[in-house]
């Protein structure tokens, strides 16, 4: 992506490049769906074969309060993310920054709360199949949230520098697809790991 | 030569070779040693599949050889194609031929599947047995625990009786295979597996591990003795009774190398 605004044929080329990038993001998300799919499959198979869940000998089941609150945070952050996209389509720089900032705040809080939850869980990765499945799923998801937060920060900075406009906001849009995906994965996670 | 003549000539060669091939194959025994009901069923499957493969093989081979001989153009210079190169006819496809090919291959495949499914059900047979042995695999030997408490490194089973083998492992995946019985099943830690087999011939047969299990995989073999029930009972009662609890095996984490 160049930093110059342009007219005519270059616009068409830029629009095609933007559309290609967004298709690439969607395909990447498809690959990620398969990754989480494999992890979920492992979880359900192992859980299905276990005599009881948590397995005998494993005492702690994480509480629902903190992750429940986290779910609200993440769902809200998807809303704010989408509002940022709307602002970009309208070309309103200050509104973009506001909504991106909020999204970052919500996502960041999610991470902090989850880190706190992990530290007080009372079990680790090595706590048999329960700990293994719990942490690999939440861990991979958390890493994706972190990566998303970094992406949002980068886009916010570029917005601040005046590099995001009605014509050029592909990164913002692509990041929003990714962020919504991360949110949906969390909803599955919350339902399967915590509630079920 | 017209296209029709080409097709008929090649077709005739194909029919002759296929018939010859099927006749040869039909009389074969493919599994080298057949000492069980299950192995006999498998041998039938082998013969049928080989017979069905013959016309398929011949179709392609005759097609290739015929084309190489009859549809060859004079060769070009070393770099690139011949000058005055002539193209073949602009045939992009043939609906009828394509449809026939699809239909015939689909029918063949479904037929093979049906035969295979029936065969599998027959091989698995009744899940009830007169004689049971626990097969314990470990890196790198086979142990057998009999109903009366005897333990041995030899598997003795009665002929013409249904035998039930329960296969276990505590370290890595092994696989219990007796070629003459036509049975093979992995020994999976945490997941005992079963084999039901009816031996039909007395004798001594080799068995071996059929899943890579580390350094000693190559040498992880065993002996299977099939004899009439009386002989097996006699052998069992002559075996030394086991001492309580064999010494604990080394933990799986210790490297096998």
């Amino acid at each position, binding site marked *: 992506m160049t930093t110059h605004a342009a007219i005519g044929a270059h616009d068409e080329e830029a629009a095609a490049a933007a559309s290609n990038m967004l298709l690439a993001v969607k395909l990447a998300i*498809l690959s990620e769906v398969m990754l989480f799919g*494999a992890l979920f499959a492992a979880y359900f198979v192992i859980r299905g074969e276990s005599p009881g869940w948590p397995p005998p000998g494993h005492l702690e089941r994480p509480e629902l309060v903190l992750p429940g609150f986290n779910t609200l945070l993440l769902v809200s952050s998807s809303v704010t993310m989408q509002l940022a996209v709307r602002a970009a389509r309208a070309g309103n720089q200050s509104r973009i920054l506001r909504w991106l900032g909020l999204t970052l705040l919500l996502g960041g809080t999610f991470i902090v709360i989850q880190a706190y939850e992990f530290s007080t869980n009372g079990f680790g990765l090595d706590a048999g199949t329960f700990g293994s499945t719990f942490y690999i799923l939440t861990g991979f998801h958390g890493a994706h949230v972190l990566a998303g937060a970094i992406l949002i920060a980068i886009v916010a900075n570029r917005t601040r520098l005046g590099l995001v406009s009605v014509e050029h906001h592909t990164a913002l849009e692509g990041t929003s697809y990714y962020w919504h995906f991360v949110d949906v994965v969390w909803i599955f996670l919350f339902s399967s790991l915590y509630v079920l | 030569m017209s296209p029709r003549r080409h097709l008929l000539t090649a077709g005739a060669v194909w029919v002759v070779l296929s018939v010859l091939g099927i006749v040869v194959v039909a009389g074969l025994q493919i599994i080298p040693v057949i000492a069980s009901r299950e192995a006999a069923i498998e041998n039938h499957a082998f013969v049928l599949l080989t017979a069905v493969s013959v016309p398929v093989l011949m179709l392609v081979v005759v*097609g290739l050889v015929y084309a*190489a001989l009859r549809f060859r153009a004079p060769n070009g210079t070393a770099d690139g194609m011949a000058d005055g190169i002539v193209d*073949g*006819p602009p045939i992009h496809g043939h609906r009828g031929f394509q449809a026939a090919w699809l239909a015939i*291959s689909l029918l063949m495949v479904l037929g093979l599947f049906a035969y295979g499914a029936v065969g599998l059900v027959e091989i698995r047979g009744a899940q009830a047995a007169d004689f049971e042995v626990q097969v314990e695999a470990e890196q790198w030997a086979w142990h057998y625990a009999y109903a009366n408490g005897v333990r041995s490194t030899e598997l003795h089973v009665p002929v013409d009786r249904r035998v039930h083998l329960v296969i276990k492992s505590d370290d890595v995946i092994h696989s219990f295979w007796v070629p003459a019985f036509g049975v093979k099943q992995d020994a*999976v830690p945490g997941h005992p597996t079963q084999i039901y087999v009816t031996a039909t011939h007395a004798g001594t047969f080799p068995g071996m591990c059929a*899943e890579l299990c580390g350094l000693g995989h190559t040498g992880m073999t065993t002996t299977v003795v099939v004899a009439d029930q009386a002989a097996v009972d006699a052998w069992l009662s002559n075996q030394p009774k086991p001492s309580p609890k064999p010494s604990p095996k080394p933990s799986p984490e210790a490297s096998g190398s």
Partner: protein
Amino acid sequence: MIATRVLAAARTFAPRSRSFVPRPGLPRAILGAIIGFALGGGLAAELKAEPGQMLALAYLFGLAGFLLGVGAFRFWLTWAVGREIDVAEEHAAHGRAGEWQRYFRFTTDHKVIGVQYLVTAFVLFFTAGTAAMFMRFELAQPGIATNKELYNTIMSTHGAMMITVALVSIIGGLGNYLVPIMIGARDMAFPKANALSYWMLPLAILLVAINPLLGGFDSGWTAYPPLSQQANLGQQAYLMAFVTVGVSSILSAINFLVTVFRMRAPGMSLMRMPIFVWALTVTAALALIATSVVAAAFTMLLFDRILGTAFFRASRGGDVILFQHLFWFYSHPAVYIMALPGLGAILEVVPVFARKPLFAYPLAVLSFISIGVMSFMVWAHHMFVSGMAEFFHIPIMLTTELISVPTGIVFLSALGTIWLGRIQFKVPMLWVFGFIWAFLIGGITGVFLADVPTDIALSDTAFVVAHFHYTIVGGTIFGLFAGTYYWFPKITGRMYNERLGRLHFWWFTLAFNATFIPMFWLGIEGMRRRVADYPAEFGTVNLFISIAAFNIALSVGVFAFNMIRSWKTGPVAESNPWQAQTLEWQIASPPPIQNFDEIPTVTATPYQYGSPRPAAAEGSSGS
């Protein structure tokens, strides 16, 4: 004299670099890798990590350092901090034509990347082949001639390397080079990501190559736990390297799909694309969808090894067979990722040398798509004796038998094209005939493995080894050779030596068949696979096989010689020596950097042989 020339070369390589900073590209990458490796290792030591954890950290940091050093992230980092992109530097990343240094740098020209992949793949092929020669030396006679531990490691390494060759050689090598040109584009959709995909490979390959120094691994490329949880550090090296190759191929797949779906020339509808492009498109879709699953499986296995998890530890509630399901859910589509590009190359070559349109082209496209879809429904046929749930056997037997129907269409298409043709038996066409025989044998023997009753007898025997060598060598390697000879004049601008090519073909094909046909018999007679020794009665046949296998290696030497010498001093080739109709033959050999002076408009499939040719049009024309 020499000193002046060296200095001149150094100056063109790095005109502005200071004396202590290594030149851009590979030298900086190596420095980056060393620094990263040291940082990761140091961090691990600080954290009092175990050897496995240390290797993981050192490798991850080393890989990051390598990629940073080669310059893979320069553009994206600049973009991320919002700095101005230097457009001139961007263009320079394409490299200047004729400059050999491009091949050792982060060059974004798809033609350079294609050659990088191709050469790397062939070097890996030769290395893995050498490992096979060691195996055949051990197996030439009963008894243990070398060392069981070393045998298991070399056997596993041979598999790991060859799998990698089969996965990347055609799509990464020939695909990258030719697909953009064949669809009338100037490059792939994401040239930088393309280069990144390539540069992820060298370190991964190195890691696999040095695994014997880390203690080796004896689990085979299939890495089943619990054995792979027990094994030495070399096992971990393999797992990490394989995941790296997987990430590279997912990135590559995204690139291919966006390129094919969005960058075709005007007039090139999907049903006017060359069949080779179709084959690679389906391949890319498979790689995109399936690879993450094996990445997950290997990650869980790695975690079991270094983080104390229990996914596959039976004593702690884990499920050993679960690994196999996850592994094969990827690895069966993977064999089509390996085979489809070869099938595509073969079907691309047949019409040119039979001088006839590709027979049943739409049906061939449909069959590739069907194979792709169905490849996700058959994985458990690798697990018939694994102890998996009994009810699964019959449905999987059905789907596995059914997949042979679309696979058979490949033979219909190839034979239908050849039949009534005017065949020119140039070297590429010889490989086509060899493929048809070899892939047929692979397919027929596959039916014996699909049928559960016969599979019980054949699973884990030499029969299986022969089957997959016939399908993968027959499909992928024969396709790779056909494609390499066919496109050699386009890529190098020179013609290979036809006589040496014929010698290679006949020697390889006879040696290959002599090596693997007897293995079917050995499997039926009861010889297992992955063993370093066998009963004495198999000695003579194994000796024969080993001698035949050594011949394979020798014939490949002829190939290497031919390629290298012809590239340097072969006769100059014209732009379309084969008088073929796909777009790459309508431009110069080798192609100019921008591929086309003017993007052509396409009006039909490139298989209009036997029809009156359009008159030579301005610019380049499709057909």
